[in-house]
């Protein structure tokens, strides 16, 4: 009993959310950078991520493909993003892995066949992390791509979910992740609900997985609603200001 109780009998998590509630989602589509072709800022609770998109532009010599465009991604975790300050090298395993995940996810999202011989670069900066920065990074990239006007099949929405004390909880914060339970990262296409990213390290039973998965999908849907509203608002505002 001495351990932290992650979901109280009254049904609240340590930060006052219910198990199925996501954290406050805020985002800004575009306008973060004047230089980039597309940019976005995403806040999921205390986790904050910036994404810049450059391109499409002429692909680098070596990388160029004639049949479709090339996508690159680079992630950096700000030294001040976590509770203990640590400078991470550019080739830090964690960030390289995340970059790869993001790239692969968006390769299935972007209509790359339209961008033959071109290259699209995505840069993600994690400014602060309180759990779920991978999901925030993916969501930021998605918005930045929309901002850049790049043709995508569908919005890619990502969220994490865990399973603590016999029930799934979504969009975990760092304290909940530190409990060391299951952490499932899911990136799904908002409309088709086709899964593009799935990541999980723990061994769990199929039943637990199913429950966690469904909770996560529902959370992605909530996130998408918020994201779409933001995109529409921004677009409308710009249309009217023109």
């Amino acid at each position: 009993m001495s351990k932290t109780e992650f979901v109280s009998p009254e049904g609240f998590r340590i930060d006052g959310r219910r198990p199925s509630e996501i954290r406050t989602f805020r985002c800004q589509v575009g306008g973060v950078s004047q230089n980039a072709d597309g940019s976005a800022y995403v806040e999921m609770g205390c986790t904050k991520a910036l994404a810049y998109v450059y391109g499409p532009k002429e692909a680098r010599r070596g990388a160029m493909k004639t049949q479709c465009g090339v996508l690159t991604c680079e992630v950096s975790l700000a030294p001040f993003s976590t509770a203990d300050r640590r400078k991470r090298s550019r080739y830090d395993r964690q960030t390289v892995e995340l970059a790869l995940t993001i790239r692969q996810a968006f390769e299935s999202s972007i209509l790359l066949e339209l961008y033959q011989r071109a290259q699209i670069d995505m840069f993600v900066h994690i400014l602060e992390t309180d759990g779920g920065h991978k999901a925030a990074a993916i969501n930021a990239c998605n918005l930045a791509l929309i901002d850049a006007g790049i043709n995508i099949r569908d919005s890619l929405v990502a969220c994490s979910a865990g399973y603590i004390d016999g029930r799934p909880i979504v969009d975990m914060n760092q304290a909940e992740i530190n409990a060391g339970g299951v952490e499932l990262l899911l990136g799904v296409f908002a409309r088709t609900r086709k899964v593009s990213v799935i990541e999980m390290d723990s061994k769990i039973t199929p039943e637990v997985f199913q429950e966690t998965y469904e909770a996560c999908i529902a959370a992605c849907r909530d996130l998408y609603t918020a994201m779409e509203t933001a995109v529409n608002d921004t677009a409308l505002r710009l249309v009217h200001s023109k």
Partner: protein
Amino acid sequence: MEVDEQRVPEDEQDKDFPQLLPLVTPGERIGHVSAYRAGAGVYERRGHLYASKVGEKLIEQDDSNQLPVVSVETAGLSGSPSVPFTGATVLAQVTRISPRRVDCIILSVEGRPIRDTSNPYKGIIRLQDVRPFEIDQIDMLECFRPTDIVKAKVVSLGDSRSFHLSTAEQDLGVVFAKSTSGHPLVALKWNEMECSKTKEREPRKVAKPSD
């Protein structure tokens, strides 16, 4: 992970994600191939047409008997960057001239500038694409000079290095150039320009200025 696309019935999609605002967002279904042709910002999957950008849905009927074109006009978000595509009109700057071809870098596509100039798209105008007639008589140096700004059309994506451009139309060719003395040239006729200061004449493949 393979998830069957059919898992979500098509009809249900819109129920789950109701359209909140008059704009369309990527992945939103905007029609069927039996009713429309796909234009810019639209892609087709399994007979349906979907938006691939955020913007207003536009339906245009051209003169032909074909189906109307549905496209998504990008709303004023930061981007809509451009990649040269076949048939696009581009502005390019000449960088190098050789007897058989002219190398240039592309500055804008369809009137939209290419912002990132660090790694520009390259184009070449081959001898046979300079003009539609008397190809065997062309002297490259009489058509272009380095630093000239040329209006051209993308004929093909070319080889792995450059797009193939063409100026073989009346309104294509040099639109801006400077004389040997460094002053802007003014178009005189289809193959000649005049220095605005010294009135010296220089040969060029000139684009027919629009009114």
